[in-house]
């Protein structure tokens, strides 16, 4: 069956579901009717969609950590600390890397080794292995919405099990959970598998259960220009909406320059709404998510707190619905509960201190916004063009052609022909546009900005400058200085 952006037929879905649920023994536990009843029993404050809507109405920004360990009871304890000591507004259940690659056997081994070692040997919770009933214990033990966060190209079974367990929020998309998270998986495959996930959410929606679907904005977390992640997020949103998803969050990873980040968050919200409306999905609720610095962190905890706090300040000054919070252990390893709580408390402190302030409207801000809007427009138009009107087909062909591209991606699907670098003020620009379908006007803007930096640093911008930028934050700067 050729991939196209069209709502799946009921028969196709049913057939696929039978196959998927047979993929691992716990698949048998999934019972949609029972699942929906369980969802109906949840109060609104434990349902992402409702909480996000309320937040938007009241102008509140929510905080959410990342967290997941191999053993169920430990995971529940961890979430309890984050909820009660960290006052997290949303909780996560981060899934381990074996599960993300559907290697459930290895995940089983990870559970066993963790039990034996008395500490988590997995970098997340293997939810599929635990199954519906066990996972429901997580939902039951928490007072706020819990989201599944992962990085799984084929998340069909994971979605089946966790939605059935009562989780109300599911991260990922056919692009954002493939390109940064896989090597050999085709976009045809991942887009199709995510249509399944989205269609499954659509099924819940038809039963009155609105699952929030969040697109993973940061991609590789490393010098991603805003328009790239915006284009990807918006495309994923459109694909999800087509399958009946009714609540969509689009994300963005902090770049570091306050003006560019503000422009990014403001345009992300506007553009997502604009495109959803334009393609007929006026009834889809949209929210925005900001990720604190996603690249390499400094190892020293005091310095890491500095990075976290600047992320918090940016979020507060720019305005966003939810912030995904880092921890002072980031550079070193999966954080302890205490480190995770510390990240939350530091972030909350800064965000509440700055709640009454925002980035002032200036020409520079307006320019940045305008550039991003133009860039996203240029890219999405080209994608639709290549797809001859079909967005899904367009995505596949666009990545093949480098018309869509993501820097530093492990996936073979990404050409990696474009190369980003920072400008003089730390905004992320294009050093090489690769095959990105940008207008002369747009390319000139990038070129001028980078020439300016080259002059200031008296060096020709090249890959060394890019490497300097990649190391910069962990070495205590934003713009990588010549060594």
């Amino acid at each position, binding site marked *: 069956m050729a991939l196209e952006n069209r709502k799946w037929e009921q028969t196709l879905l049913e057939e696929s579901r039978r196959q998927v649920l047979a993929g691992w023994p716990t698949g048998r536990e999934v019972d949609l009717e029972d699942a929906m009843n369980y969802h109906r029993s949840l109060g609104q404050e434990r349902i992402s969609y409702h909480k996000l809507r309320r937040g938007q109405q009241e102008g509140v920004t929510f905080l959410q950590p990342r967290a997941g360990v191999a053993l169920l009871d430990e995971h529940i304890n961890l979430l309890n600390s984050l909820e009660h000591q960290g006052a997290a507004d949303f909780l996560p259940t981060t899934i381990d890397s074996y599960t993300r690659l559907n290697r459930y056997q290895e995940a089983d081994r990870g559970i066993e080794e963790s039990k034996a070692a008395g500490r988590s040997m997995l970098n997340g919770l293997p939810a599929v292995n635990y199954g519906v009933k066990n996972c429901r214990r997580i939902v039951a033990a928490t007072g706020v919405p819990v989201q599944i966060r992962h990085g799984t190209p084929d998340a069909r079974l994971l979605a089946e099990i966790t939605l059935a367990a009562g989780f109300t929020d599911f991260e990922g998309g056919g692009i954002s959970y493939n390109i*940064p998270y896989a090597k050999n998986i085709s976009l045809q495959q991942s887009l199709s598998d995510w249509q399944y996930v989205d269609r499954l959410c659509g099924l819940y929606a038809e039963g009155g259960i609105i699952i929030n679907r969040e697109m993973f904005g940061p991609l590789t977390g490393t010098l991603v220009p805003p328009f790239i992640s915006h284009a990807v997020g918006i495309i994923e949103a459109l694909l999800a909406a087509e399958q009946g998803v009714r609540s969509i969050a689009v994300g963005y990873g902090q770049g570091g320059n306050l003006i560019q980040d503000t422009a990014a968050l403001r345009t992300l919200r506007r553009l997502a709404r604009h495109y959803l409306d334009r393609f007929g999905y006026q009834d889809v609720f949209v929210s925005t998510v900001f990720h604190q610095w996603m690249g390499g962190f400094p190892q020293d905890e005091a310095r890491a707190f500095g990075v976290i706090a600047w992320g918090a300040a940016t979020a507060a000054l720019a305005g966003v619905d939810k912030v995904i919070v880092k921890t002072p252990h980031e550079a070193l390893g999966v954080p302890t509960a205490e480190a995770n709580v510390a990240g939350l408390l530091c972030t909350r402190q800064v965000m509440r201190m700055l709640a009454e302030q925002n980035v002032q409207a200036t020409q520079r801000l307006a320019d940045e916004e305008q550039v991003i809007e133009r860039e996203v427009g240029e890219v999405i138009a080209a994608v639709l063009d290549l797809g001859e009107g079909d967005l899904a087909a367009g995505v596949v062909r666009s990545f093949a052609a480098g018309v869509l591209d993501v820097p530093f991606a492990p996936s073979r699907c990404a050409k990696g022909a474009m190369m980003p670098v920072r400008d003089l003020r730390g905004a992320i620009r294009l050093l090489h546009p690769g095959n990105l379908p940008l207008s002369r006007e747009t390319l000139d803007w990038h070129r001028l900005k980078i020439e300016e930096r080259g002059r200031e640093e008296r060096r020709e911008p090249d890959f060394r400058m890019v490497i300097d930028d990649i190391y910069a934050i962990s070495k205590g700067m934003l713009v990588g200085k010549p060594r």
Partner: protein
Amino acid sequence: MPRTTTIVLGVIGADVHAVGNKILEMTFSDAGFKVVNLGVMVSQEEFINAAVETDAAAILVSSLYGHGEMDCRGLREKCRESGIGKILLYAGGNLVVGKRTFSQVEAMYREMGFDRVYPPGVMPDVAIADLRKDLGL
């Protein structure tokens, strides 16, 4: 030994952290090594096959995502079985789950047969210098 020394580079297991790997490739190439970069998600077998095929002097294993402990176990034994038992094995990245004292981690990986073990965030020049020393270059 050929004038240009070959090394095999890759990120082991189900790990997709690509950024450091790309930088290691650039910096080791820059330093004059012939780099066979297997990229991310590399199995033990792939590392060994590449090393055998290219007559490599060292295998540089990265593991960032935390499962390194499980993924790296047995690599030295497999090298022996494939007749390259003496090849240099280096490991670096975030080698275990969580923040742990590096000396523990180092001991564990040395026990597994790695010749050199690096703490999180080590700069490539350090490993380049070590490699030159270990190979008598």
